[in-house]
């Protein structure tokens, strides 16, 4: 059919007119500006990321090595308590060791030199002897950490030109250190202690094992609660709940919960889990419960979005062959939504792993030198451990704080990599 009523086609247009050329130039300029703005914002974001990582690495890298000194300890049977090896006079043996190494020094000087060894040195010796009691009566050659000031000295963070009264190591100690260096007794191997030790007041002994184990139990609790509950709530709200005012009200509240400041959840946990239920203070289980409350809205919202994104044709196909609603959801819709559900869960857990404020309120920032043996013993987590270390006055904790942040970031990267792997696995089931 010809359309005679419509407007007549415009007369031949001059596509080369200056006005049209200006139009083209304006459009191209707009595109160039948009592209440039995009690139600039990416550059700014990457720049700040690089700046943050660089500053963390610059301050933190030295915490990944720990200065050690090799000493020869005579395990003197006279100082050994045969009944209870652990209670032997280890401190005395360390004193003797210093005396052997510095025979010319007087008693006061020896004590000064003795500060070179970490307080933990005697426990290293103790543990070695406990593990192998046949060492009694022999000489044990062992590497022990030096105390923090000497670690700083070895890492070049102490300026020898500073007047003696203004630095933390005395001339006598520097002389002793130099002698040990000359004897090739000082070394700085990789500091496995930073992930292998629990917390300590002494930076050279402090490690993140307690915090890592605490974080593990906390995340496990958080996942075990928020994942099934979140998926359950999302399935109910998305698939079964009648659309009425009550379900609208619930939906609005879930969205609001996602925006509640985390410290409020901490207060809630303090009032309900600790004071009312009487759960143990500082336990990863309580922390996990608290963070599960925080993660739930994220998981619910992500799961609902993923369920909604499953094409209706799949639901119809399943209904069409006589699948019940529950079969449609569990055989078809949920498996197809799983990648989205996983993404949401990982985002929620990644948020939980970095959460500090609510954990401070339930006492997960206590000074704990034992590695937690389960979800119910008091523990710290990586962020609260960072918080504690950042607050500690010893110089050695400065680099350890940065190192701990780097380790936290590494854990996050590993988690995200795992998430992407899992997501791809689920997606590969076409």
């Amino acid at each position: 059919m010809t359309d005679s009523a419509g407007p007549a086609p415009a007369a031949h247009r001059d596509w080369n007119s200056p006005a049209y050329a200006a139009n083209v130039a304006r459009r191209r300029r707009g595109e160039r500006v948009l592209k440039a703005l995009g690139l600039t914002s990416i550059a700014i974001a990457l720049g700040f990321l690089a700046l943050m990582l660089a500053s963390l690495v610059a301050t933190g890298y030295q915490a990944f090595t720990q200065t050690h000194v090799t000493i020869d300890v005579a395990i003197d049977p006279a100082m050994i308590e045969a009944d209870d090896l652990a209670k032997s006079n280890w401190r005395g043996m360390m004193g003797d060791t210093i005396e052997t190494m510095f025979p010319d020094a007087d008693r006061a000087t020896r004590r000064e030199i003795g500060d070179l060894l970490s307080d933990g040195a005697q426990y290293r010796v103790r543990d070695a002897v406990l593990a192998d009691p046949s060492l009694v009566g022999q000489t044990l050659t062992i590497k022990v950490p030096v105390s923090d000031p000497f670690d700083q000295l070895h890492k070049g963070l102490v300026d020898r030109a500073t007047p003696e009264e203004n630095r933390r190591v005395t001339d006598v100690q520097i002389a002793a250190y130099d002698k040990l260096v000359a004897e090739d007794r000082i070394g700085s191997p990789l500091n496995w202690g930073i992930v292998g030790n629990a917390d300590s007041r002494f930076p050279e002994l402090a490690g993140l094992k307690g915090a890592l184990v605490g974080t593990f139990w906390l995340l496990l609790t958080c996942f075990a609660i928020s994942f099934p509950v979140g998926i359950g709530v999302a399935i109910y709200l998305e698939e079964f709940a009648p659309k009425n005012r009550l379900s609208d009200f619930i939906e609005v509240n879930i969205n609001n919960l996602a925006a509640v400041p985390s410290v409020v959840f901490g207060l809630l946990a303090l009032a309900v889990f600790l004071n009312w239920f009487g759960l143990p203070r500082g336990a990863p289980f309580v922390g996990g419960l608290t963070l599960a409350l925080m993660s739930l809205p994220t998981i619910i919202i992500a799961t609902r979005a993923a369920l909604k994104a499953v094409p209706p044709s799949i639901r119809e196909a399943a209904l069409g062959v006589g699948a019940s609603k529950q079969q449609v959801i569990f055989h078809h819709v949920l498996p197809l939504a799983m990648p989205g559900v996983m993404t949401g869960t990982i985002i929620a857990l990644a948020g939980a792993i970095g959460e500090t404020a609510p954990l401070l309120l339930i006492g997960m920032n206590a000074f704990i030198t034992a590695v937690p043996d389960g979800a119910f013993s008091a523990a710290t987590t990586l962020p609260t451990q960072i918080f504690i270390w950042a607050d500690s006055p010893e110089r050695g904790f400065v680099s350890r704080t940065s190192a701990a942040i780097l380790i936290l970031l590494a854990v996050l990267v590993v988690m995200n990599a795992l998430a992407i792997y899992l997501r791809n696995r689920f997606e590969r089931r076409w």
Partner: protein
Amino acid sequence: MLDAKVLTERSVTADRIKMSARDVQVHYGAKHALKDVSVDILDRTVTAFIGPSGCGKSTFLRCLNRMNDTVDIARVEGDIKLDGEDIYAPAIDPVQLRARVGMVFQKPNPFPKSIYDNVAYGPKIHGLASTKADLDGLVETALKRAALWNEVKDRLADPGTGLSGGQQQRLCIARAIATGPEVLLMDEPCSSLDPIATAQIEELIDDLRANFSVVIVTHSMQQAARVSQRTAFFHLGILVEYGDTPAIFTNPKDPRTESYITGRIG
């Protein structure tokens, strides 16, 4: 308005009626989508529903296996019987009904699973096969009836979504007939297929008539003329005319049917 019921009963003998609908009304919220539809669907016959878009033919089709139940705002009134049994009676389980009245959709929608699992799903959830061998047999029969067996027998473990559009639609037909339905509803099954795949499906529909009662919604009048023995013409939610296909196409009683068939409306 012409009385469809009178037309219907003229050429139908009661013993061959598979499904019968009387005075069916469908409301979507405030919209009265289907008005007073009465139709008898014959056994082992292909019945075509034709009409312009939005005329209610798909809506009516979805009443026959209670798929409209899954739409919150849909309300179905009237009387629809399968073998004399009211399918909207409280005692009827809609899930079981959908195994007896299978459905094939407009767009091929295989599950994102293997070809085998696609066909085996229905028998599995309804417990139709007790052993793996039984199930294998059901899958093979269904694929053979859907004229797909020879093309896929060596790759049953491949994803159903990897097949071509026409193959996917035949897979969906195999899936629908694997539960042993008595009636097969097809909602514009060829609308997303090329002419060759369409011809294959049409041939298949003709074969399926030997075992099933087939109801097909189609936009294509040529298709209705080719595959069906009975044709119902819907317009604006009303069943305008229903009768033997040759009669509808060569000698329509209602002026609206004639206008549609000759291309003046729709």
